[in-house]
């Protein structure tokens, strides 16, 4: 199986993307920002279609759109986190723009708009070329490095924003940087698992890690590990079963891990819930 170049490319691109998505997802869940991640993933769809309509490289549209909307969401939120109603409204409009670009694109001279839409929505990790794979890997590593750099203050700013601000942590700036990183990760993961499905790679491994441990760095590592396991097992499963699309296989593994994380605490009886994750501190901020 590893003799095939497309498998090697998929693993090369998929592993850093998974590590980055798992780690970012840990913070996304901790900050209750999964809806923002969802919106950004749909923005990726609009960005790709805008690029297709304009006839430029899809990746330009992907990154420009997700980073722009991430900055917009951070700005709308100001010092607090953006509330989900604002996200919902922005995101309806972004999808509406996606429809507009789809209209413009399918009216142009380009054929096969269904294929672009399908690849953007559902991804095609087996369709990555070697250069795309290396680029994806490089961006994934850069995102991981940036996240590790801000992990400590971000954790502080997330768990207790008032205290962090009092201690001189730049809470607003960190929130902004984090959303931009999330945007970059969303644009990157869109190419592997697609705009509709990348949310699973962000939410499911992180949700499982939060269920299983309250220790932040352990949870961060666990979340990345689950995401990598999802991508690897998903790729193997999709290779073995040809009718199974790789994106579905990856998401299937991720969802199973999450479901298992619900069952394990019930079986082992003692509750590993974090003391601070059961309280509603994120509502009071």
């Amino acid at each position: 199986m590893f003799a095939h170049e497309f498998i090697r490319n998929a693993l090369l691109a998929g592993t850093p993307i998974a590590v980055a998505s798992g780690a970012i997802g840990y913070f996304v869940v901790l900050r209750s920002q999964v809806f923002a991640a969802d919106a950004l993933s749909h923005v990726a769809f609009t960005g790709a279609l805008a690029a297709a309509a304009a006839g430029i490289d899809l990746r330009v549209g992907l990154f420009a759109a997700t980073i722009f909307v991430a900055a917009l969401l951070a700005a709308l939120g100001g010092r607090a986190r953006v509330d989900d109603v604002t996200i919902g409204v922005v995101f309806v409009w972004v999808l509406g723009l996606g429809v507009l670009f789809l209209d413009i694109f399918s009216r142009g001279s380009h054929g096969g708009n269904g294929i672009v839409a399908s690849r953007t929505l559902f991804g095609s990790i087996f369709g990555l070329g070697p250069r795309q794979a290396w680029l994806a890997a490089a961006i994934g590593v850069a995102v991981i490095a940036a996240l590790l750099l801000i992990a400590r203050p971000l954790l502080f700013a997330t768990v207790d924003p008032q205290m962090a601000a009092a201690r001189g942590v730049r809470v607003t700036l960190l929130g902004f940087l984090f959303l931009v990183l999330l945007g970059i990760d969303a644009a990157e993961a869109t190419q592997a698992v697609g705009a509709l499905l990348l949310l699973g790679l962000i939410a499911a491994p992180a949700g499982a890690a939060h269920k299983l441990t309250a220790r932040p760095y352990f949870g961060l590592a666990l979340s990345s590990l689950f995401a990598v396991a999802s991508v690897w097992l998903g790729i193997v499963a999709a290779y073995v079963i040809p009718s199974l699309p790789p994106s579905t296989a990856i998401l299937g593994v991720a969802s199973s891990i999450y479901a298992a994380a619900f069952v394990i605490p019930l079986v082992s009886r003692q509750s590993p819930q974090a003391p601070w994750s059961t309280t509603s501190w994120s509502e009071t901020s």
Partner: protein
Amino acid sequence: MSFSGLHQMLAYPFMVHALAAGAIVAVMASITGWFMVLRRETFAGHTLSAMSFPGASAALLAGVPLAAGYFGFCALGALLIAAGSRTAGRRNPSQESAVIGAVQAAALALGFLFLSLYGGVLVDLESLLFGSFLGITADQVWTLAAITVGVLAFFAIAGRPLLYTSVDELAASARGVRVRVLQVAFLVVLGLAVAATAQITGVLLVFALLVAPAAGAQQLTARIPLSIALSVLFALAIVWIGLTLAYFGNYSVGFYVSTLAFALYVVCRGGRKLLPA
């Protein structure tokens, strides 16, 4: 567009059906959405509307009526979200958002699997996601009306306690309101309402009508009856203007409706600053 142009538009039966269906959807979505916005369950609402994709593709694959797939998946999604989003009996925001996200992604992945097993084409997917108001029949208008009556009946019965738990969950449960039952019931009704409308008008349009009019109205007033009435009014205006623009313009109705919805929300947010406090 002139008056004679409008007159001519109303001479087409499909446009009359579309305007009627749009009005019914607007009433149902704006009232359901009003509670959704109040309860901060926008993400759940979006996820339930995404459920119609696996629902439709499962129904195609299994050869059962589309409606069965839609209702089945939407109800299943509502139950999963309600089951997973509580820790120790209380709503837990970070766990809730993770559960919703995972349910949504898993459902969409299943939908993609069903679609590729079916070997279907993506043209259907686009009209499913983004809606096509053309070709709505008189029968479908009546079906929508019946579902809307059901949804409104739910709010007539459960509206007051639901309002109570939405505003102050602890006080409501102390007063004996069945908070948990209401949460599950509301999510299921939300899912069913979305499922019913999505198969006729498209997922995007329903979601635009769920969130924007209610969010705009709640910016403008804190008085409940006025706020609900405003939200219905906004939704009606968005749908009718959007459909008219789509009839005369070049692009899909989804684009016009979502742009109008966004503009309305921006205006309401700006308008709040001008109102006396």
